[in-house]
């Protein structure tokens, strides 16, 4: 059950700083476009900036540098939103944990904050720590009444399974809007949009990217993803909705790799929650950019026919 007290604290702002994600931009552009346009339909104007770079999480978690090196990058990205006096809305679980966790960390360590601010001052910026970071799924859940009112293409008769991903719920054990062990807010959103929720056993399991394991320990990564996909296949949903572009890329691409390596038959279309909301809110087909998806393309077309897209 979503924690209603935390949900109530999320504002419904007029404008929000729209934080673009690396994977969403370069692999699945539909996530970015749909997130932006869906927020606009729901009455929140997204503000973008070309100054925004990657959140810097990769650098720390891949041990390419010490965590102190990526903290200024977090401060820089958050200061962009602070300049405009806005909160930040992210598309990716990784960006969410990294920005909120390290932002929180800097806010509570004055010594570190002042040394980072020295670097910020060099380029005419300042980090104050006033911008709150919200995940787009959180925003959608907060705006669920508006979503209900604006549904143009009800997802009638479409079986949808959910995958929450790790970094939002687990990283935000106390700050996320739902319980890390048994979350239900995506299911609620799906039902609001008229879809049918399909449960499956491995729902709370990691997608298997393992951040860097897909590069360093590919066998481990594929084995884990296969376990997850087997469970999904058993439930046989029409769509598997994710809320993290990195999970999206892993689940989408690994299906094809498993089909190739082990003669499997994994054909479950993966879709990001922003794209699903965009679909229900009636965005144009090219804006969904479903052409960028690799697995289950035929099934995806059938779903689109069903909802009249």
């Amino acid at each position: 059950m979503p924690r209603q007290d935390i949900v109530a604290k999320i504002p419904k702002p007029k404008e929000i700083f729209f934080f673009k994600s690396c994977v969403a931009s370069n692999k699945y552009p539909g996530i970015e476009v749909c997130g932006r346009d869906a927020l606009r339909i729901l009455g929140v104007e997204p503000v973008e900036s070309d100054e925004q770079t990657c959140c810097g999480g990769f650098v720390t978690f891949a041990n390419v540098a010490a965590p102190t090196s990526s903290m200024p990058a977090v401060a820089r990205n958050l200061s962009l939103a602070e300049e405009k006096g806005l909160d930040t809305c992210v598309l990716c679980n990784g960006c969410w944990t990294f920005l909120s966790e390290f932002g929180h960390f800097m806010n509570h360590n004055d010594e570190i904050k002042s040394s980072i601010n020295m670097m910020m001052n060099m380029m005419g910026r300042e980090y104050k720590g006033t911008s709150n970071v919200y995940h787009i799924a959180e925003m959608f859940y907060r705006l669920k009444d508006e979503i209900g009112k604006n549904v143009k293409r009800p997802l009638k008769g479409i079986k949808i399974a959910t995958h929450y991903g790790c970094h939002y719920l687990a990283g935000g054990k106390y700050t996320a809007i739902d319980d890390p062990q048994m979350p239900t807010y995506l299911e609620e959103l799906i039902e609001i949009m008229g879809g049918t929720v399909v449960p499956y056993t491995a729902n709370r399991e990691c997608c298997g990217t393992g951040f860097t394991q897909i590069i360093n320990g590919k066998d481990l990564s594929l084995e884990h993803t296969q376990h997850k996909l087997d469970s999904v296949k058993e439930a046989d949903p029409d769509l598997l909705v994710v809320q993290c572009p990195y999970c999206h890329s892993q689940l989408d691409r690994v299906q094809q790799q498993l089909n190739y390596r082990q003669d499997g038959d994994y054909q479950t279309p993966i879709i990001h929650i922003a794209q699903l909301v965009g679909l229900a809110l009636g965005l144009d087909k090219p804006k969904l950019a479903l052409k960028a998806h690799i697995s289950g393309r035929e099934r995806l077309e059938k779903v689109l026919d069903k909802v009249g897209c």
Partner: protein
Amino acid sequence: MADNYLEEYGKETSQEVGERTLNYFSELFSMEMPLSRMMKMMPGMVKFMMAGKDTREDLLNFMPQMMPMVKQAFTGKKEE
């Protein structure tokens, strides 16, 4: 090739390894700004200055703030 990590470390104890690790981290996370560290920062700042007109202006605006730090690094004393 050693079969066990204890062979690889030989006579070294965990205490020595721990000591080395602690030294490494205290250097890595040090907040102090000795001269050597400041000199290491210089190439980055110069590169940033050369990147464009606006970056140069921003960096020049920062200079007054930086002078006391440079002084401190040279003398090794904290200014009162």
